[in-house]
């Protein structure tokens, strides 16, 4: 008998705004819910649980010392003042086993490889000076996930040389993705490394003859948000035959839609599908109904025997061989969706995304479709009563 793939399960109680969270992860797991309901700190906690020895090693190399004080560790890991998320009532279970986080943090192991790559919501800060900063550049008030992301981008830059092109690059990403990104995010521009006064920086250079270079400060909001995300995806999608970067099993992307037009969000979702197809266990948080549109379509199309071509049609992309293979793989993967409910501090499994569910959090897609629903209701009432 074939053993089904293991589905990691985490239960967390009394952690920050979370009273009770019970999450079973799919190949793709989506977190939705209002601001400050615990989506981000739960993802950061997940990273901490998966990569404790690695995180300690990174802190150690950077000279960060919490002197055995667990609350100080929480402040340097989650960011200044965040130790308050922990209390003596906090409990954590991973795959049915209770985890004593203070003991885990104090453990001796400190030199393991990283298994989760985390692209934080504040990713734009990693390029604020036009070039990714080192881990140590940030002070201890900055969350680990941002410091580490910035450090990874800094390391990634060495792959591209002193005056290299970062996008488009032949061996980075599928050709179809490069074409889509060029058309919708970088129309008429290449992303390059440039040196000015002996300082390297990222620029967008016009592909037209005589066109100039644009530094980060004048990029569009969408480009500023997208470039660090693109570089994070480069880190995950190595330009070798290996589907994943060595040691990495998980990919976390917070608020992937930030600053992007719906067309660009669709491309990013396809790239999330690419991560799934490569075997990463992907977790994303989102405030975009379009992301749930994509998940809903993926699940419904699969349930009703639709083809990979049908799925690609949702994204309005050509059914090339490569994209058909991608869609075919993704249609076999499992997706989970969780709603973080401020009331009660609980999580709800709304994976079915059933528009007819009696539970409003599911039919309203965790609040993402509620506004549209209320707008529709109000208009329906007004129209029904205005024209007898």
């Amino acid at each position, binding site marked *: 008998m074939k053993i089904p793939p293991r589905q990691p399960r985490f239960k967390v109680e009394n952690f920050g705004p979370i009273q009770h969270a019970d999450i079973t992860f799919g190949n793709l797991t989506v977190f939705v819910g209002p601001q400050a309901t615990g989506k981000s700190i739960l993802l950061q906690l997940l990273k901490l649980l998966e990569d404790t020895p690695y995180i300690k090693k990174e802190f150690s190399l950077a000279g960060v010392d919490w002197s055995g004080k667990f609350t100080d560790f929480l402040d340097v890991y989650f960011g200044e003042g965040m130790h308050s998320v922990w209390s003596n009532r906090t409990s954590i279970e991973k795959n049915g086993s209770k985890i004593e986080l203070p003991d885990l943090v104090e453990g001796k192991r400190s030199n393991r490889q990283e298994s989760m790559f985390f692209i934080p919501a504040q990713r734009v800060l990693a390029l604020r000076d036009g070039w990714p900063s080192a881990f140590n550049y940030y002070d201890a008030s900055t969350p680990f996930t941002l410091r580490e992301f910035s450090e990874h981008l800094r390391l990634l830059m060495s792959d591209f040389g002193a005056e290299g092109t970062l996008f488009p690059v032949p061996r980075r990403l599928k050709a179809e993705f490069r074409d889509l990104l060029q058309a919708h995010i970088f129309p008429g521009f290449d992303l390059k490394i440039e040196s000015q006064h002996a300082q390297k920086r990222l620029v967008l250079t016009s592909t037209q003859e005589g066109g100039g270079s644009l530094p980060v400060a004048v990029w569009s909001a969408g480009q500023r948000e997208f470039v660090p995300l693109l570089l994070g995806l480069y880190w995950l999608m190595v330009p070798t035959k290996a589907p994943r970067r060595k040691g990495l099993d998980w990919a976390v992307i917070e608020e992937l839609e930030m600053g992007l037009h719906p067309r660009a969000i669709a491309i990013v979702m396809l790239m999330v599908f690419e991560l799934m197809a490569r075997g990463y266990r992907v977790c994303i948080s989102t405030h975009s*109904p379009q992301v749930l549109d994509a998940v*809903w379509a993926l699940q*419904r199309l699969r349930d009703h025997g639709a083809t990979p071509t049908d799925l690609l049609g949702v994204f309005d992309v050509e059914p090339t061989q490569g994209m058909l293979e991608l869609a075919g793989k993704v249609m076999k993967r499992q997706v989970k969706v969780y709603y973080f409910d401020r009331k009660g501090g609980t999580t709800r499994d709304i994976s079915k*995304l059933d*528009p*007819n*569910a*009696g539970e409003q959090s599911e*039919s*309203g*897609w965790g609040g993402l*479709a*509620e*506004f*549209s*629903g209320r*707008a*529709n*209701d109000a*208009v*329906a*009432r*007004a*129209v*029904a*009563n205005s*024209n*007898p």
Partner: protein
Amino acid sequence: MGFKESVEETPNLGGKWMVGLDALRAQDKVRIDPESTSTAHLRGSVDIDTAWLALDPQGNRWDFAIGYKHQNRSDEFIYWVETHTGADDQIAVMFRKLDWLKTWLSGAGRKLAEFDRLFVWVPSGATSFRQGSDQVRKLADKGIKYSGSKFRIPLNHKKSKP
């Protein structure tokens, strides 16, 4: 004049008023979920479709009307409910039904046009319409609320009326 009296005074509906949701077919009744079923709130129902079947057999007749007295309103309110397949190709059919209903309300049914109202499409069977979808927006724009597979009538109306 209340819902019951207005039904009784409407041509071809005399004697058709029924208590509670009794005018609805059994398979439709389970799709309606009034928060209060007390007769103080649920003011009865009438089967328009059957009443007008013989008179207008080819018409796109609407199904039912349900009278409701919300706790926060002084007047009675009518929910015009159509249970119908929830599919893309049925949107045009629903618009024709709404046209039929509005025409009827401006003529024989004018007593019932005096009430505040909501036109509601309750899908029978599976549907893939969702809140915020183009289909639901198109319907709202014509004055039709597309409900989930169960339509809940709240005790308090969103829009109170003293």
